C-alpha cells in the first residue's frame, strides 16, 4: 500500500496534513499517538469511509474494524456475520470461522452481549472477507487479555497486511513490524518496535 500526502479538514480543524507512508504485503504497521492525533481519521480514509481532501492512495481491498462497534443490536451474532459475509462476498465457511474465533453463541442477540463480546463480534465482521489489507481501529479495546491473545493469534496467522491503531504501546511494540507516530494530524516519526515508543508519544503530545 502507498499513501502519499494525505490531508483532511473538518471545517477549520486540520485533522490530517501531508501524511505519507508505505507498507509491503504482509507488513504489520501500528499507528500510535496522543488523543486527537488523527489516527481514527487516517484509518477511516484508508477504509474508504471518508474521502481525503488531498493526497493519493494506492490500496488493495481492505477489511475495516471501526473503533466503535458497528453491528446490529436486533440481529443475532450469526445473523450479523451472515449479513456482512453476504455483502462482502466472503469465502465459504467464513461465518463458521468467525464464530469459532469469537467463541460466541451464534443465536445470541447482539444487543444482549457485553461490551467486550460486542467488540469481538465487531472485529469478526471486519475479518470476514479475508482481505489482503486489514485496518483495525483500537481492535483490542474492551477485550480481556485472553480475548486479546486469541485476536492477535488469529490476525498473526493471516496472510495480510495489517495496519492498526492502539493506545497500548506494549501491544504496538509486540505485534507490529513498524510504528508510525501521529501528532496534530502529522506523521512525526516512523520507529522500530524496539524504540522508546512511550517517550515518542509524550514528545509528540507536547
Amino acid at each position: 500500500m502507498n499513501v502519499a500526502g494525505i490531508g483532511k479538514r473538518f471545517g477549520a480543524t486540520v485533522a490530517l496534513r501531508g501524511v505519507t507512508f508505505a507498507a509491503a504485503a504482509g507488513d504489520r504497521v501500528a499507528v500510535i499517538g496522543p488523543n486527537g492525533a488523527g489516527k481514527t481519521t487516517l484509518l477511516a480514509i484508508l477504509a474508504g469511509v471518508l474521502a481525503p481532501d488531498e493526497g493519493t492512495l494506492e490500496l488493495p481491498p481492505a477489511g475495516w474494524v471501526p473503533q466503535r462497534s458497528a453491528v446490529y443490536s436486533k440481529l443475532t451474532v450469526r445473523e450479523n456475520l451472515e449479513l456482512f459475509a453476504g455483502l462482502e462476498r466472503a469465502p465459504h465457511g467464513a461465518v463458521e470461522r468467525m464464530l469459532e474465533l469469537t467463541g460466541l453463541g451464534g443465536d445470541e442477540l447482539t444487543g444482549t452481549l457485553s461490551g467486550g463480546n460486542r467488540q469481538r463480534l465487531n472485529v469478526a465482521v471486519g475479518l470476514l472477507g479475508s482481505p489482503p489489507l486489514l485496518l483495525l481501529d483500537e481492535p483490542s479495546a474492551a477485550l480481556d487479555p485472553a480475548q486479546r491473545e486469541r485476536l492477535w493469534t488469529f490476525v498473526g496467522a493471516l496472510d495480510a497486511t495489517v495496519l492498526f491503531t492502539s493506545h497500548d504501546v506494549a501491544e504496538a511494540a509486540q505485534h507490529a513490524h513498524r510504528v508510525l507516530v501521529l501528532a496534530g494530524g502529522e506523521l512525526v516519526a516512523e520507529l522500530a518496535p524496539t524504540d522508546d515508543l512511550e517517550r515518542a508519544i509524550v514528545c509528540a503530545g507536547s
Partner: protein
Amino acid sequence: MRRLLVKDLRILRRSPLLVALLVLYPVVVAVLVGAALTGGPAKPRVAFANLAGDTTFTLGGETLNPSVYTGKLFEAIDPIRVHTREEAIAKVRDGDALAALVIPADAAQRLQGMLSLVGGEPPTVEVFYNAEDPVKRRYVESTIRSRLAEANAALSDAVLAQSAKYLDLVVKGGELSFPLVGEVKILGLRNARTLIDTSLRGIPEDAPERAPLEQVSRFARVAAENLDLSKPILASIGQPVRVKQTVVSGSKTPLDAFAVGVAATLSLMLVTLLLAAGLLALERDEGTYARLVRGLVSRGALLTEKIALAALAALVVTLLQLAVVRIFVTISPRPLALAAGALAFAALGTALGALAREVRAASLLAVLLALPVAFMALVPSGAVSAPLYDVLNLVSGLFPFKPTLRALDGSGPALAHLCALALGYGVVARLALRRF
C-alpha cells in the same frame, strides 16, 4: 432541588431553538387546527346571473315577478352579481365564488307557458359548484337547495293562489281583466247551469232541444263540482322551477368518503414518515452506516431499500385499514394513489432521517413536521385571507399530504406531483447522506 431547577433553566436559556419550539410550535398547531376545523364562511360567496332580468308573467290578471323570490336566497349568501352565465362559471372556476346560480332568460316565459296550460318544460335554474373542499361543498349545496326550495314554495303558493282564483271564476263566475280588452264578465259554470235549468222548465218534455240542454246542465254541474276538488291537486305542485346542479371544479367525493380519505392519508403519512426516518437514522445509531457505504452498499441503494420498505409497510397497513372501513362506507381504495403517496412520504422520511441522524430526533422531527402540514392542507379557503391561503397552498404543495388526498380523489396530475415529490426528497436525502 433548587440546584436541579437552576441547572435546567440554564440549559433552556442556552437552547433558544428548543424554547422556541416548545412555545411557538403548540401555538402554531393550535392556530392551524382552529383554521382547519372552521366551518364554511357565514355567508358563502355565490355568483348570481339573472338572465331573465325583471321579466314577469301574468296569471289571472295578476303580474308575478320570479326575481322577487331570489331575495330569500340572498338572505343566506353573499351574492356576486354577474351579467352572463360564462362569467358566473368563471367566478366558480377561479375560486372567487363557491357556487354560481344562473336563472335562464326564458324563465318567466316557461313559467307562463306551463301554468297557462299551453305546455312546455318548466324553467331550469342552473347551479355550479366549486367542490374543492367537500365540507364546504356540502354546506353550499344545502344552503342553495334549501333557499331554492323556499323560493319554489313561495312561487308555487302565489301560482296556486292565482290558479284557485281562476278556478273560482270558472266555477262561480265573475269579472276577468284582459290586456287591451278590459273587464270581461264570466258567467261561471254554476250560473250557466242555473240559466239552463230555468230554460228547461219552460221547454216541453218531448221537445227535441231538451236532451242536449239537459246534457249541458249535467256537464256544468259535474265540472263545477270537480273543479272545486282540483284545488288540493294544484297545491301539490311544489316545484314549478327545476334545478340542475353541476360541479365545475374540485372534488366530486362525498363528505364521508373524503373523511375516510383524510384518515387513510394521515395514517399512511405517520407510518411511512416514522418508519423511513427511523430506519435510516438507526444505521447511524448502530454505527453500521459507515460500514455499509464504504464499499458494500451504495448510498443510493441504501436509500432505495429504506424507501421501498417503509412505503410497502405503510401501504399494507393502510389498505388493511381501508378494507375494514369499506364495510361501513362506500369508498374506492385507489391503491395506485396510496402507493404514490407512500413513496413520496417515504422519500421525505429518509430526508428527515438523514438530516436528524439520530432515531429519536428523526421520529420527533417527523411528527413535528407531519401534523402541522396535515392541518395546513385541510384549511378551507374561506377560513383565512386569500394571500395566506395561497401561502398555505404553496407550502402544502411541497409536502405529499394534500397531493395524496387529491390522488385519492382521482386526480391524475396529483399522481405526477407525488412522483416529483418522491424524486425531489430522494435527492435531498442523498445529499444529506454526504454528511451523515
